[in-house]
């Protein structure tokens, strides 16, 4: 322990000052610094910076796409609302139109029915009149027939003669 009581002295190796160690350490450290900077830390820092930028870009992109999505959502919502209103209008219109058409059809049908009824009535009246007149004719001819038959049966030759004379007389008096 005796020689190493003074630690600085011990490391100097007694009498010697290790100037070579100092220079070697310095040179080695500078070489190491240069080498690891070139082959290790440089690329590592590069990739870390790249990742940082990548993440920042991703965040920006995500924010942008989220804004886009919300805008689209709003748009879609608006469109949906609009189309719902439109659909309601369409239904309303169709209902109204149907109502109108129904009214129309009913009115037409009613008019048609009225017209048919009217013409039928007129026809009936016509037919009746025709039938009455035909009947009247028939009755007239029948009555003539009957009268002639009655006359034919009851008039004897004497009576006929008498009748003829009467007629002639009458005709002469009136003249």
């Amino acid at each position, binding site marked *: 322990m005796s020689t190493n009581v003074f630690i600085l002295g011990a490391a100097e*190796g007694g009498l010697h000052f290790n100037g070579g*160690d100092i220079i070697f*350490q310095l040179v080695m450290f500078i070489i190491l610094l240069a080498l690891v900077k070139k082959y290790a830390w440089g*690329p590592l820092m590069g990739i870390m910076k790249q990742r940082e930028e990548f993440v920042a870009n991703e965040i920006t992109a995500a924010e942008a796409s989220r804004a886009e999505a919300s805008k689209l959502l709003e748009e879609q919502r608006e469109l949906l609302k609009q189309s719902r209103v439109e659909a309601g209008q369409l239904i309303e219109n169709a209902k109204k139109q149907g109502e109108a058409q129904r009214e129309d059809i009913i009115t037409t049908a009613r008019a048609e029915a009225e017209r048919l009824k009217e013409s039928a009535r007129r026809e009936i009246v016509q037919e009746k009149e025709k039938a009455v007149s035909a009947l009247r004719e028939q009755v007239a001819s029948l009555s003539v027939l009957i009268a002639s038959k009655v006359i034919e049966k009851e008039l004897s030759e004497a009576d006929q003669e008498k009748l003829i004379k009467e007629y002639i007389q009458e005709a002469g008096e009136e003249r």
Partner: protein
Amino acid sequence: MNHGAPIVEFLGLHFNLANIMMITIASLIVFILAVVSTRRIEMKPTGIQNFMEWVMDFVKGIINSSMDWQTGGRFLVLGLTLIMYIFVSNMLGLPFSVIVGHDLWWKSPTADPVITMTLAVMVMGLSHYYGVKMLGAKAYGKTFFQPMSFMFPLKIIEEFANTLTLGLRLYGNIYAGEILLGLLAGLATSGYADGIGSGLIGTISAAVPMLAWQGFSLFVGSIQAFIFVMLAMVFISHKVSQDH
């Protein structure tokens, strides 16, 4: 406990070969770890890439807590490399140490004050460099006389004190940890020289403290790496921020 160091002289400088080896090994481990973890980097991180990104975020947090990112961003690579290097260095001495002959070969490089002071001086030097670069020489010089001009000697002392504490705190923690680990290892093995019984007693009595101390050293090593980087960033921010 008192091991020597394999020191050689080359070009008039003294090299501690153990330090050289451990510095190289720590640097290699950090480099391999870093490259392997970022070999296949993807947008969706998996496995070790996650870990590396966590470390990077951790260092980012350290820097952000002491200065704004506008000025602190350029120190990310420095902080990241420092924390990895110091952490790996602290961990290297934990599992074992290798002593060849009388020389200690395998240890934490940060268990040597020369290494830690080198790192500390480097950080302080960088802080002054960036202070001049970002504030301008005049504004940088002014910081030594603020808030009052009589503070100047204190400011000068503060610079040296900061450097010393930054380096020696790390060194002291790691060196102490290794010393205690070495003592416990000695307790576990030295008894066998007297007989199998005393050896067993020594091993058993050393096992639990050894386990506890290794766990604690793991904790200390991580904390010290964090503190070193934290303080480095605080000192740098003191030099580069206008409002100080």
